[in-house]
């Protein structure tokens, strides 16, 4: 299941800026105007809309095993594989090898979950943060997914005692006013982002959230996965802007229930994508 970026509410953000503008050094341009309203830096609750689509504009160095898995993934997002545009592009390699969606191996195209990092770097839809006494909860509009971060001081579990999960097992703590979240136990079928970068079940993900002002939340992720990447891979800075709840929708003043419904997905695949891809 996938969304298109050509949404009315994000048109200017996406259309006016090239992917290069989303690089770390350009964060200020997408962070929005200054906001001097008082805020509690440890209050991250609200509906937030991120600007980044994809994890990083830097190519991570991979192990031979990681590269083999990466090569086997066939994304449907990015610049077309083998096209002149792909040859001329300065985009990371993962963003220059897209094939027709009818032929992709992207697991989400049949309603498999996006996975943790992919959910966090998904510009077309917002997420919601709710803080309770012992957890931080995140609800993701696209695919109607959720995850929880335990804030009660517990250690990360021994994941060999559990089956791996798409959103993993997370604990969090504050370092000053930065929320640091650690996650292990990720199902290795998920992709890091839409461009088919892999991760393994041994991955360790660190998220660092900082509320920079009343309406701006910044996130940096570090993926440490030595079987796939030869060194920790740090994301670009995702900037979330706070959404006015009443602006979300007249009928739904919160996240839309945008589930991935296999019946709808299969119908679309059969009637639209297969003809488009020349698949009979």
């Amino acid at each position, binding site marked *: *299941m*996938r*969304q*298109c*970026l*050509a*949404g*009315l*509410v*994000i*048109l*200017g*953000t*996406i*259309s*006016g800026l090239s*992917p290069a503008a989303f690089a770390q050094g350009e964060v200020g341009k997408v962070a*929005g*105007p200054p*906001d001097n*309203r008082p805020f509690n830096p440890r209050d991250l609750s609200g509906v937030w*809309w991120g*600007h980044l689509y994809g994890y990083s504009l830097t190519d991570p160095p991979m192990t031979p095993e990681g590269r083999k898995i990466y090569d086997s993934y066939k994304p*449907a*997002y*990015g*610049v*077309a594989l083998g096209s002149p*545009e792909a040859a001329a592009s300065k985009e990371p390699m993962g*963003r220059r090898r*897209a*094939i*027709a*969606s*009818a032929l*992709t191996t992207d697991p989400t195209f049949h309603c498999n979950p996006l996975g943790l990092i992919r959910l966090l770097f998904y*510009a077309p*839809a917002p997420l919601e943060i709710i803080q309770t006494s012992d957890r931080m909860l995140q609800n993701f*509009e696209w695919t109607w997914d959720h995850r929880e971060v335990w804030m009660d001081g517990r250690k990360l579990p021994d994941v060999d005692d559990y089956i791996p999960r798409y959103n993993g097992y997370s604990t969090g703590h504050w370092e000053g006013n930065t929320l640091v979240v650690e996650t292990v136990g990720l199902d290795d079928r998920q992709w890091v982002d839409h461009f088919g970068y892999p991760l393994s079940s041994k991955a360790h993900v660190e998220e660092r959230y900082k509320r920079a002002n*009343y*309406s701006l939340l910044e996130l940096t992720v570090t993926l440490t996965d030595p079987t796939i990447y030869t060194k920790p891979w740090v994301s670009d800075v995702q900037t979330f*802007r*706070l*959404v*006015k709840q009443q602006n*979300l*929708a*007249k009928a*739904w003043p919160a996240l839309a229930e*945008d589930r*991935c*419904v296999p019946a*709808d*997905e299969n119908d*679309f695949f059969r009637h639209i*994508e297969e*003809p*488009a*891809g*020349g698949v009979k």
Partner: protein
Amino acid sequence: MKPSGLLIKILFLSVLLLLLSIPGLAHHGTAISYDMSKKLTLKAVVTEFKYANPHPSIFFDYTNDKGEVEHWVSEMLTNVSFLMRAGWTKKRSEEALKPGTTVVLTVYRSKAGGLSGVVTKIETEAGEQIVAGSPADRDAIIDKEK
């Protein structure tokens, strides 16, 4: 004063034009499955419109130069959540694009050929210029300091 049906249709199609006119980052079915170098402008009759995920789709009949009726399938470059947030609920959208409605579509055919495409623009039958205007951005819904 209640807006007239025609006004509603114009507003809807204006919104659709806004939604579809922005290239954005690569979309799964756009630059990949479709030949974006050959723009087709087809005056067609809607046979079915699906307001659904992952993308709305329009099925339409186009009568070609030989007088043959071609039965097309197409996807639209938007999402129902975006339409809904722009005020175009399921009911309003289905009314504006109900079967039998004549529209002028900007379509890019699939690279595989055939009667399959992606629709990037919709215009009224009267051929009215629907001005795209300035695209709204995320700022429209962001909670900003006044």
